[in-house]
């Protein structure tokens, strides 16, 4: 009994910042730690950037460095506000080389009043590269190649769009941002599978060690790199991941154990263990609505 009280009190700081109020008031047996290692829960927050100007224009974006639209800016601020309301405090942030994700991060940090937190940029968090389709209008592409082919390129796990060549303005080798990157690492196209494997390099080398060192990490990135991340964390299948939609501008919070395995939150929406911040019904609607779209 005494041990349970001590453990409960020790869990208090964790429960106040990371879990829902109901967990604090009515801790279930799985949430009262029996060993000291279970007390060191890690937290990871993911944020997908909001609408970009090319989303508005319905163009394949990939590595094209387009800015957020006005709506995307609002989404980012809203995401920041949600994190602020949760009382979240970060030690380090990671984002991609693309301004729509960086701007999303900046706006969130501004809302959180944590602009002083270190930010690291990596191309490995970039959106999946769309090869020769980058810049093309989605509808025109469907008209040209047929709906089924385009669906394959967009939603297959391992079939990438056609490659672009090195004269293309969309080849990363022609962009100064990537001067420090090995030429052989720069994609001419990517599938979700390829995106995942180049993302995981950074997970292993940088993100996981940061989390394990006790730092509170915020990752602001893109639809496909966050898919890669949650697929890895939650062991989601190849089939299921291509259909999974992570709503934009909604912070997704993971609590991880010592082995960086997710601790399933009671508000989690399958197949994820993490929980979204904000109005749960709205979020469920958004996820459902996107799944129902025939694309």
């Amino acid at each position, binding site marked *: 009994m005494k041990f349970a009280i001590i453990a409960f009190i020790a869990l208090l700081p964790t429960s106040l910042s990371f879990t829902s109020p109901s967990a604090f008031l009515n801790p279930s047996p799985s949430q009262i730690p029996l060993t000291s290692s279970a007390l060191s829960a890690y937290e990871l927050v993911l944020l997908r950037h909001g609408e970009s100007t090319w989303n508005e224009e319905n163009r394949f974006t990939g590595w094209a460095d387009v800015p957020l639209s006005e709506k995307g800016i609002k989404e980012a601020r809203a995401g920041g506000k949600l994190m602020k309301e949760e009382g979240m*405090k970060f030690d380090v942030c990671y984002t991609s*080389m*693309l*301004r729509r994700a*960086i*701007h999303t991060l*900046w706006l969130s940090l*501004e809302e959180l*009043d944590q*602009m*002083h*937190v*270190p*930010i*690291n*940029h990596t191309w490995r968090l970039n959106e999946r590269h769309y090869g020769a389709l980058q810049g093309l209008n989605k509808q025109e592409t469907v008209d040209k190649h047929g709906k089924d082919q385009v669906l394959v390129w967009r939603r297959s796990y391992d079939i990438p769009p056609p490659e672009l060549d090195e*004269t293309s*303005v969309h080849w990363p080798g*022609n*962009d*100064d*941002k990537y001067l420090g990157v090995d030429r052989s690492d720069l994609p001419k196209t990517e599938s979700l599978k390829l995106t995942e494997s180049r993302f995981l390099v950074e997970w292993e080398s940088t993100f996981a060690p940061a989390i394990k060192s006790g730092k509170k990490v915020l990752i602001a990135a893109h639809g496909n790199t966050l898919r890669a991340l949650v697929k890895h964390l939650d062991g989601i299948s190849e089939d299921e991941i291509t259909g999974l939609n992570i709503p934009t501008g909604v912070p997704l919070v993971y609590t991880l154990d010592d082995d960086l395995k997710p601790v399933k939150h009671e508000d989690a929406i399958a197949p994820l263990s993490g929980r979204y911040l904000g109005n749960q019904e709205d979020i469920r609607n958004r996820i459902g609505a996107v799944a129902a779209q025939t694309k």
Partner: protein
Amino acid sequence: MFAARRSLTPFNRLLSTNLYRNKHTLVLVRHGESTWNLENKFTGWVDVPLSPKGHEEVIQAGQLIKAEGIVPNIAFTSKLKRAIRTLWHVLEQTDLMWIPQTQAWELNERHYGGLQGLDKQETVDKYGKDQVLVWRRSYDVPPPTVDRGSEHHPSNESKYDDITVADDFTESLSTTLDRVLPFYESSIVPQLKSGKTVLVAAHGNSLRALVKHLDGISEDSIAELNIPTGTPLVYELDEDLKPIVQEGAITPLKGRYLGDQDAIRERIEGVKNQTK
């Protein structure tokens, strides 16, 4: 043509990357007007935001840097949002939001000790104009200290958890220099030496510390030197990182300001003539 950044062949890229290639270029930007500048309060380490005018000033600063064809490769700023926001505006305008950025407390504004948060006029009324002038413009006489019980003591802010400061804390320009220069040497110099163009977005006194060192300005002159807000100050340094006198440089600086030179001179003179 030389400012184009998306040319296709390696040779064209070499030419186009930077007008200042193979030089050591350091760009300094003092943050724009803050809300407490408007309210005429001693700020120091208090983390106030830019005023609307301040935002505009530094957006312009970014546009000036872009128009000049200067392409920073790495950026440094302080832990205070008015400088960080200044940096972000510049990076947005120059399309360089992705370059490595470091927020360092060593680039913070001078801490104003027990005067932080006080209205400047009220402080003059309380302590007398001369005393306040000494605290503001002397090289090495600091304002009164704050202790650990004060909200202004850095130990009470989690952003400074990594540093240890004295129980009774305050700063003069001299002690500010004592923490700016080692940071310059250890973190900025290696970048310059490796050929990177460095952008520093910081504060009046942390930039005074830097230019005092770069331009060999005396202790007497530095306290009077005013670096206009939101006005990029460009240094080109030789192999030994000594500044090369720029055309249009305004004594005692060897660097040159970007922008309307007449307006800039007026601003520098104007502030000097203010009785404060």
